[in-house]
């Protein structure tokens, strides 16, 4: 039961991305744990237990999401989500010509050197959450599982059945956007 208490909040968060309500997400998490109990004999220890549990969770959440008409096809997850020419930082922040081309024209500032802009953490958390909510599904799943819930890249890759490179591209884009949201937050503060 320790694991149930430890992992269920993350599992709920992941399930919630596939299904329309918190109540359905709870169902999915419960079903997953029951499935784990019934199938533990089939767990071969080739992946970590957590990878295995999250794979079951994602599959169940997807099935349930399909039934509730809110599904993310794996193909869509794996695509880079229609962001051809993605740039982590707005290109106008770099020098666009001359010998310094590509250098910072307006460099980022160190947040921690500006104590007067000290982070109001509740507000920053809200800002981060709203940025995550705006991300395309694949990016949202990957950043949530990796950075919010602390799963390893291997665990996320296996649970979502995507390649390592794909996982990294989704993570890169998602992190770049959240960083920008925080930068804007500090600039406005």
């Amino acid at each position: 039961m320790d694991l149930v208490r430890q992992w269920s909040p993350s599992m709920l968060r992941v399930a919630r991305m596939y299904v329309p309500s918190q109540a359905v997400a709870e169902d999915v998490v419960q079903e997953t744990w029951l499935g784990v109990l019934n199938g533990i004999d089939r767990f071969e220890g080739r992946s970590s237990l957590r990878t295995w549990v999250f794979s079951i969770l994602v599959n169940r959440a997807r099935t349930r999401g399909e039934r509730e008409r809110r599904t993310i096809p794996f193909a869509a997850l794996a695509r880079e989500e229609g962001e051809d020419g993605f740039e982590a930082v707005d290109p106008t922040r770099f020098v666009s010509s001359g010998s310094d081309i590509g250098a910072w024209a307006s460099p980022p500032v160190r947040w921690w050197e500006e104590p007067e802009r000290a982070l109001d953490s509740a507000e920053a958390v809200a800002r981060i959450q709203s940025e995550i909510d705006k991300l395309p599904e694949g990016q949202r799943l990957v950043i949530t599982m990796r950075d919010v819930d602390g799963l390893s890249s291997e665990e996320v890759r296996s649970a979502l059945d995507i390649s390592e490179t794909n996982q990294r591209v989704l993570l890169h884009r998602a992190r770049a956007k959240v960083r920008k949201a925080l930068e804007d937050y500090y600039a406005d503060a």
Partner: protein
Amino acid sequence: MPDPLNCRELVELVTDYLEDAMPPAERARVEAHIATCDGCDAYLIQMRETIVALGTLPADPLSREAEDELRTAFRDWQAGQAPQP
């Protein structure tokens, strides 16, 4: 001596760098750039702080009812696993 990176190129490599998913020579290029570039050093630190901040987002626990039901299921399961008398 390989071409040095510019800042616009560097920001696209930050995830590969943090994920330790680049060959040593590429890693050396990234580190050489950061060592002499305040802007990119700040960018990298901002990115690390972003990741730390992401880890502080609160999560809802399972509801009391759901946890109780699971507790019962686990108990039944353990009883079923025990050697029969």
